[in-house]
């Protein structure tokens, strides 16, 4: 599957070189969104037109949930180990990590905007 990695490997430097051109950035965002729509539509089509697969839909969903919840729990456990055992709070930094009040204002991508040159705001728009 060298082709798949190759496509990304060629894309990254191309994106880096063209990152200051809004027209390119906009086109890439739209192209990404619509190719994802198209490919997932095709995936749905392949699933829906296959009677054997439709019969197994409940089983597929159940397995999906088992895998994702186990992965999530494993990651949280690994994070706890990292933070409390290996680093002993080193990620909190000086003067950080007081528990935030539950009604705190909406914060998005804090403190990242000051430094400037990222061309797009990807929040809420995963490619």
């Amino acid at each position, binding site marked *: 599957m060298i082709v798949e990695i190759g496509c990304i490997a060629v894309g990254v430097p191309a994106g880096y070189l063209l*990152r200051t051109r809004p027209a390119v950035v906009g086109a*890439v965002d739209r192209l990404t969104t619509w190719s994802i729509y198209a490919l997932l539509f*095709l995936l749905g089509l392949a*699933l829906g037109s296959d009677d054997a697969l439709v019969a197994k839909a409940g089983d597929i969903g159940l397995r999906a949930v088992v895998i994702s*919840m186990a992965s999530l729990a494993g990651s949280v456990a690994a994070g*706890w180990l990292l933070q409390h055992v290996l680093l002993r709070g080193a*990620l909190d930094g000086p003067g950080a990590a007081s528990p935030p009040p539950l009604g705190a204002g909406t914060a998005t991508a804090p403190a990242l905007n000051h430094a400037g040159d*990222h061309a797009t705001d990807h929040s809420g728009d995963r490619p």
Partner: protein
Amino acid sequence: MKGSLIILGFFLSGVLLGRLDIIPRADQAGDLASWALYMLLFVVGMGIGFDTRSFRILRELHVKVALVPLFVGIGTLGGSLAAWALLGDMPLRDVLGVGAGFGYYSLSSIMITKMGDAALGSMALIANISRELVTLLSAPLLVRLFGGLAPVMAGGATSMDTSLPIIARYAGERYGIIAVFSGMVLTVAVPILVTAIFTWM
């Protein structure tokens, strides 16, 4: 959230149209899907190249922050192994591939469809969407129980965008920055890991 629902809508309308047999010979779409995937991977690569935040974050924060995405990977691997043992009858390769999406459901499900099959691709879609959804819903609880790093770990690749606002709000600004870094590293790792798992296992 809205983006996930639109994507789910496209997937479900595909399922519906497939059920209705309106579009004959859906298997003809395979070749088209291959080229669409290559193009998608290329533009995903470009999107990564556009975004230079991660290098800056690594400079500004302690280098130990690089351990965060590594431990998401280790924890996901451990969790997937547990799921594999629990499910009992699935090939290890398939379980690890589904887990290695780290919540990046669009790309992982599309790649797994191509390298595995439609059943596994659909499983990856549901698994990774639910990882994102549960992260969004449980972030406040995770912070209270396990500390600020927990929602970053749970979010995986989604912690750089869809689950970033809720992480920044409940875990604080500093964890928001760690979340962006970890999410970006994992976003790059998803296509590489999925390809590696399906090529060599």
